[in-house]
């Protein structure tokens, strides 16, 4: 074999002859070969496809989940042609999940909204120009307000938009348009953590940094399938050099449970019993940090008394776990030098989520596992900018983590924004479900939904559809005109998406990251920021937002709003500074930046001072309540819902647009069912089954697997009809929906 034929390994000595080398008969080169040729990409990228060689690169944080990975965008003539994960970023260390890898692909979908659409007399959505759309928006919304009062129009926003856009929307709606009620889809994912933190710590403050995953020796994951939901956080767990104990509390045998050193497959919604029982054991055995408790917390004595009835027997009965397993859990918490407690939707999406989260916070507080490397009571956020929404959406809280009810706060905000203080409402908005109920009660007539898809994602879907169909004027602002919600709208406003606009996201560990405009939005689509400015202008309150000239000027306003707050970011100069520092975690007050306050990975409460006026954290607790809809003779299974795969995002408006991602998950609804249950129902693998609750019925493929316990079934949330089954029950404090437990029956179709 001649050397020219050796395609690979120029620097490797050639060995023996191949069995059938006929060089002259074989085409070693040509257009097809060159189609896949690689060449050095430059910019530290390594080899890239020659056809996609960039002439510049930039970075942007990803727009899916709250991990906040940084992606290298490969640019040609200023436009992103492909991407790869950013190695030099403290979050993802050069990795991304499939959604991130395919983030640009989904921008090219044929169902992008490219022009405003207005429902005509015949009930069809027809393209109109922006001018008509804006005039219609203003005329209809103002008409409703003049007939029913300013509060009769509400908005529902998102955790998927940049902070600057959220802030502009919240300010425009409440201060400019006189809207009182607005909420975000963050109600569906993070509200519980927000309230739990506010009550316990005095501020909505996730205390951790991702380095804690690597520094723990004991990692407790509750209701969190990190492997699929946050693969890049799991990366950090996998890089932990301490051979950590990984304890997973989850009814299902998830990927994460498989990788755990101890899995506690407890009965659904028995978490509080378990954690109170653990607290009792820790107290009984003196496995607590008395010094920390005395110096930095309130309410421990009451808590210690409260947990007394949670005896091992009681916890065994409530959870279905063995006494040994529970004892081992307590022992591991005690044995760990650096114990971190992490929770996600299994805790948040519950009718008693706040108290469950606080039961975990209590465990961290009483063992002194907070404020130190590898510790914490840590809520893992869902959406890319849920944290931005929590601080700056101006819905439940006033801009910048302020309080609508606090006159000083109102004065401060009014002063910074240069608006009349009277324009700031004195109370928080209704929560998401209260806004929807407001439609039913005839109080809400106009609804503006931005960057979210409630017709798919909201609990008890049939009722939700009924409510949306009753709205007199429904405006949906989205990247795609095809979402289940957009299809019900009277007016669709076409929005630019991630990579088509600038702004910042705040990730789970409080890190600001910059996203950039590296793609041209299709047709007449505009960034949400621009749409809000146009609406302000058309509404007649444009002058109020003159200073909101660009996302970055809005960012400067947000900085001012944060001054003196726990989330103070006055020390961040501009986007470039965020970029150059690999993202910046709040707090970052003026003067920060050197020493401990400027470190790239920082955690809160190192000094033991919390945000309550007395600087102490609170022990909060409450008796567990029974499941709102337990299994019954008629509906004998408990339905759990959750994520299907790492390639799917929520209602799939984006992820279903990538052919590669579509190959990575099942193309139809399936239901996981235990082999024992399947046998007794006469269901064989792959049979078509009906899953029915009091509210609806879906048909699904049976996935017979021992990873769900007997008496439970599991359905991923990504198929549009999954929420026909779920039951609209809410946490009384956080108003977060209880997605993860309702009663269903399963029957074989055709049986």
């Amino acid at each position, binding site marked *: 074999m001649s050397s020219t034929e050796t395609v690979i390994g120029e620097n490797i000595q050639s060995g023996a002859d191949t069995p059938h080398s006929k060089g002259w008969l074989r085409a070693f080169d040509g257009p097809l070969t060159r189609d896949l040729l690689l060449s050095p990409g430059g910019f530290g990228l390594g080899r890239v496809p020659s056809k996609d060689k960039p002439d510049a690169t930039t970075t942007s944080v990803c727009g899916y989940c709250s991990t906040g990975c940084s992606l290298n965008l490969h640019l040609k003539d200023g436009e992103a042609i492909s991407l790869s994960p950013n190695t030099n970023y403290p979050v993802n260390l050069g990795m991304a999940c499939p959604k991130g890898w395919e983030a640009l692909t989904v921008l090219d979908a044929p169902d992008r909204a490219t022009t405003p659409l207005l429902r005509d007399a015949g009930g069809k959505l027809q393209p109109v120009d922006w001018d008509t759309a804006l005039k219609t928006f203003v005329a209809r919304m103002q008409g409703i307000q003049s007939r029913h009062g300013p509060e009769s129009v509400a908005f529902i926003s998102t955790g998927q938009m940049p902070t600057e856009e959220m802030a502009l929307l919240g300010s425009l709606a409440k201060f400019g348009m006189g809207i009182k009620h607005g909420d975000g889809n963050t109600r569906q994912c993070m509200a519980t953590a927000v309230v739990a933190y506010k009550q316990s710590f005095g501020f909505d403050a996730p205390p951790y940094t991702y380095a804690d995953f690597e520094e723990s020796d004991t990692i407790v994951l509750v209701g969190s399938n990190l492997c699929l939901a946050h693969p890049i956080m799991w990366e950090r767990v996998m890089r932990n050099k301490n051979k950590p104990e990984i304890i997973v509390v989850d009814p299902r045998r998830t990927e994460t449970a498989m990788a755990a050193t101890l899995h506690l497959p407890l009965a659904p919604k028995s978490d509080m019993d378990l954690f109170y029982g653990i607290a009792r054991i820790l107290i009984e055995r003196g496995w607590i940090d008395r010094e920390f408790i005395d110096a930095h917390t309130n309410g421990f004595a009451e808590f210690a008394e409260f947990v007394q009835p949670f005896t091992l027997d009681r916890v065994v009965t409530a959870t279905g776990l063995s006494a040994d397993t529970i004892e081992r859990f307590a022992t591991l918490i005690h044995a760990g030098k650096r114990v971190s407690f992490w929770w996600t939707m299994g805790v948040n999406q519950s009718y008693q989520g706040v108290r469950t989260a606080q039961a975990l916070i209590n465990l961290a507080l009483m063992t002194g596992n907070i404020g130190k490397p590898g510790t914490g009571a840590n809520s893992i956020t869902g959406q890319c900018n849920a944290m931005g929404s929590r601080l700056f959406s101006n819905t439940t809280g006033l801009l910048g983590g302020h309080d609508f009810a606090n006159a000083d706060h109102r004065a401060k905000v009014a002063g910074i924004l240069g608006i009349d203080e009277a324009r700031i409402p004195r109370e928080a908005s209704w929560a998401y479900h209260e806004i929807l109920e407001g439609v039913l009660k005839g109080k809400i007539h106009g609804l503006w939904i931005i960057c979210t898809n409630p017709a798919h994602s909201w609990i008890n879907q049939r009722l939700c559809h009924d409510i949306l169909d009753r709205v007199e004027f429904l405006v949906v602002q989205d990247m795609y005109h095809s979402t289940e919600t957009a299809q019900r709208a009277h007016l669709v406003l076409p929005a630019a998406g991630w990579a088509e606009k600038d702004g910042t996201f705040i990730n789970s560990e409080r890190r600001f990251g910059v996203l950039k405009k590296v793609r041209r939005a299709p047709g007449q689509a505009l960034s949400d920021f*621009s749409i809000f400015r146009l609406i302000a202008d058309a509404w007649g309150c444009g002058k109020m937002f003159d200073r909101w000239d660009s996302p970055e000027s809005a960012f400067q306003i947000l900085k001012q709003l944060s001054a003196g707050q726990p989330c103070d970011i006055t020390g961040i100069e501009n986007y470039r500074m965020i970029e150059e520092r690999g993202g910046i975690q709040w707090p970052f007050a003026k003067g920060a930046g050197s020493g401990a306050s400027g470190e790239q990975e920082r955690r809160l409460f190192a000094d033991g001072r919390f945000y309550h006026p007395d600087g102490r954290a609170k022990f909060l607790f409450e008796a567990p309540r029974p499941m709102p809809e337990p299994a019954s003779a008629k509906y004998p299974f408990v339905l759990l819902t959750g994520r299907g795969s790492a390639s799917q995002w929520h209602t799939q408006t984006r992820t279903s647009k990538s052919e590669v991602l579509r190959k990575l998950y099942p193309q139809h609804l399936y239901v996981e069912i235990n082999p024992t249950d399947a046998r007794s129902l006469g269901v064989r693998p792959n049979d078509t089954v009906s899953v029915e609750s009091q509210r609806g019925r879906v048909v699904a493929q049976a996935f017979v697997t021992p990873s769900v316990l007997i008496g439970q079934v599991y359905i991923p949330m990504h198929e549009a009809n999954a929420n026909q089954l779920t039951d609209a029950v809410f946490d009384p404090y956080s108003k977060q929906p209880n997605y993860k437990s309702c009663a269903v029956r399963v029957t074989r179709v055709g049986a």
Partner: protein
Amino acid sequence: MSVTLPETTGSDRLAGGVSPPVDRMSFDHEPTGGLTPPARQEFDGQTLLARLLSDQQQLTAVEQFARQHDDGALPAQSRYYKSLIPASPPGPGQQFAFEVDLDRCSGCKACVTACHSLNGLDQGETWRDVGMLIGGTTELPVLQHVTTACHHCIEPGCMSACPVDAYEKDPVTGIVKHLDDQCFGCQYCILACPYEVPKYHSGLGIVRKCDMCSDRLAHGEAPACVQACPHEAIAIRIVNLSQVIEDSEANVFLPAAPDPQITLPTTTYKSSKVFPRNLLPVDFHSVSTQHPHWPLIVMLVLTQFSVGSFLVGLGLERLLSAELVSAIRPLHSLSALAFGLLALAASTLHLGRPQYAWRAVIGLRHSWLSREIVVFGAFAGAAILYAAGSWFGFESVGLGPILHDAVGWSVGAFGLCGVFCSVMIYAFTQRAFWSFPLTATRFALTTMLLGIAATWVTLLALAVINNGPVTRLLIRRGDLVCEGLMIVTVTKLAFEALIFRHLLRKQTTPLKRSALLMTGPLVRWTQARFALGLIGGLLMPAILRTLIGDVAPSSPSMLATSAALFVACLAGELLERYLFFAAVAAPRMPGTLRG
């Protein structure tokens, strides 16, 4: 890290107009109260709209974040993957191989998307897959994701099968590489690979596959999947060939994966877990029909038709007078030839790039597909010679009458060899439904069945055009032809029906899967196949037997029944061959949940 630009470019190039400058604030100063442009009040709704729409189309990230970049450094990511690739090339008796640490594979599937993206694959094209195994008990359930790509086998099925030598196994690294410009898109490698590795790209008309990012490895970079696995589950290691062979004896490759003895895959799957015995792929219970390959169906049936016609004709000639032989031979050989040529034409339709069909001879030394093409080519040549001789006399084509028979028998011999090569093409894949005995029996019976049917049609046609001797032969001996057809038909249908006995098995064997497919998703095809077989090979000949002697060969009932016989037999065999392709259970790596 900001926007990074090559040192040689920089602001000059940018000023050259990456995108037009826009009126946005600079990063160098903080905004002040006087931020609002003085002309701001001029903007009414329309001009603000126009400005925002224009702004939306400006891409300014490069200008805002441009920084010089120091080129020539190692790829940034190398600091994470350095330990995941070998530092030196493999020695003699060794090669590169994937190593997958199952304990670290969490099922995120980033490897699939990274491979797609970093290799510049077309929309929807993927070279890596992630499947899932489940098993265990409710007390201790086990689930395991499995990432898989090409196993760069020691004896690659794809390479042996390829008729154009579009594969080569690198003598040093052992990487099995596909030469895209050499491929003519026959897709035989797809059938020959037990792991579904080569993927057909219909747009390009060729197959493409994983080459372990050989170009990256040659330059000290890790393959895309290795670079991109957040959990460092995939690595490139050096394996000893003898060890791979030894390991294949114990069949410890991966639970529920195809037998490693077929191709000796080099990937190592390692795990600290003890897998339960009931560990199965989540798609184990899915039976899905395979691609039917219509050009191949037509090609196989018609080549066997043609070969059968010649063979039955040659056999018949042994029993007949010279007068009858010279009466029958021209028409019979011509029709047999016509179907043979049609078959060969049909086969080229199967190629993604038929203009390179000539390359098929290249792989003669190892590829049964090459051999089939060459042998059937010789068959066609001999058949043309034979048919021409039959029509024009052998003298006219330069052959003496002595060679007359010799050419005839060589046609038969080439035909039989061709059919044998066809059998071997499928037997080589080691799929149970395509095993040598099953496929050989199937193809041999088709050859006989269609040969007899064709012979009947020839005899009838000659009788109709009023050839006295043939008419007498038909009346005297026609019932024998009918009976022969009926016997072969019954034998063949009974043989085909034997597959259904596998339905009784408890274990879902590959043959049971075929039976499940034929009685499940393919049941209509199965019913049609057996109905046509019974009509064409049993009912029609039975009717003809009663008609012979009673009615003239040219009578409508005779013609109609014979036409029905021919069409039903041919259609029945085409359906049989459709099921042959569609109902085969292909071995595969663990997959994902499917319907």
